[in-house]
């Protein structure tokens, strides 16, 4: 075989290797889908202050749904939140704040005092992790119709509900829903998604923003 033939036959192999390398080096942009508009809400937090969906504008907020009397049913969900909280330092969201809001399904029972005790039992930093509830009728609009999380009050003051996390971006758009998953491994997924959202926020200006919009159209979802 002549030298020339060897070189010629090697070219396609080299090209394939180069393409594979390029794919690894220039990872395709990942974006989270823009699922739905998050509901507007007006609730009262653990410090008896009004908090609204407008206060959350501009921040990335992870919502979950629980109530102070839920005991063991919420333990797994709270462990996940604690784990995410402890790993937040590793997530770069630029200037955008990441916050947690636990919406209590028990609008009648969970007064600010009760919520404050619940928060301190969980060791939550309430600057970062708020607890809130509101008028039961408004709560139904927000949680059932808006966040699409079903719950039902039982006879003995307990609530049946599906453990759910909902991730909302600074536009007030739902970007992630994590349902029926109560294992601590949820934290991995949510932390990864927070990173993807953070990257999107940091790249939301100039030429990079075009690439992100294009990624939405070409559906590069993780």
């Amino acid at each position: 075989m002549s030298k020339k033939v060897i070189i010629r036959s090697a070219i396609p192999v080299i090209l394939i290797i180069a393409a594979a390398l390029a794919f690894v080096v220039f990872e395709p942009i990942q974006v989270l889908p823009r699922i739905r508009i998050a509901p507007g809400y007006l609730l009262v937090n653990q410090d008896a202050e009004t908090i609204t969906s407008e206060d959350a504008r501009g921040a990335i907020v992870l919502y979950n749904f629980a109530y102070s009397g839920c005991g063991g049913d919420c333990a797994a969900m709270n462990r996940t939140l604690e784990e995410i909280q402890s790993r937040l330092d590793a997530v770069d969201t630029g200037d955008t704040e990441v916050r947690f809001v636990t919406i209590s399904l028990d609008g009648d029972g969970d007064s600010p005092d009760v919520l404050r005790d619940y928060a301190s039992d969980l060791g939550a930093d309430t600057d970062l992790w708020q607890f809130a509830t509101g008028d039961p009728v408004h709560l139904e609009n927000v949680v059932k119709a808006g966040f699409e999380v079903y719950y039902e009050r039982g006879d003995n003051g307990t609530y049946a509900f599906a453990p759910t996390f909902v991730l909302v971006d600074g536009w007030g758009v739902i970007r992630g829903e994590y349902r029926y998953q109560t294992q601590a491994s949820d934290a991995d997924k949510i932390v990864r998604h927070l990173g993807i959202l953070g990257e999107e926020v940091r790249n939301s200006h100039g030429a990079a923003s075009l690439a992100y919009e294009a990624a939405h159209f070409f559906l590069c979802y993780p």
Partner: protein
Amino acid sequence: MTLNWKRVTVAAAVAVVGVLVAWYVILPRFQPHIFGGAVIQSTQRVPRTELMSADGPVRMTDFEGKVVVVYFGYTFCPDVCPATLSKLATSLKILGDRADDVQVIMVTVDPARDTAEALKEYVTHFDPTFIGLTGDEAIINQVATLYGVVYEPAEGSAGTGYTVDHTSTVLLVDKEGYLKLVLPFEGSAEQIASDIDYFLG
């Protein structure tokens, strides 16, 4: 080898024309439309709740085939609402004849004071095609919540009575009745017109 200058000139001219056509004609077709707000990708239907206009009951789903622009405000609103409504009226003027397939709706966040008649008088002052909608407080709360809108009565001056703080986003619903775009209050009339134009197809 001698260069054929005539050929080189023709080739250069063809190359220049080719680059210009690619730059100004072909590339723009592949450029994504730049939206003024956040685009919702999945299929979020507008609520079918029945609201009241001065000319009878209206559902958001009554306007299939038109792009619907939804805004939440109230007639006693001192600043944000008139600014937004006049901006939307300007957007319709920019769209010209294409505005025939656009319906602008203002839903009140102050149903206690805004009657259907008062709303009609208010919104048609900005553009005769605008519609104002009201309903029971419980229904307004439900509809606003689903559109990501929150409102809260606040103290006002003696002259205006109370004011109502409310979310100031403008929402775009496509011709099939899907909620598609959330626009911030700051958006320009030109940007809103070009976004409406995109959804008109």
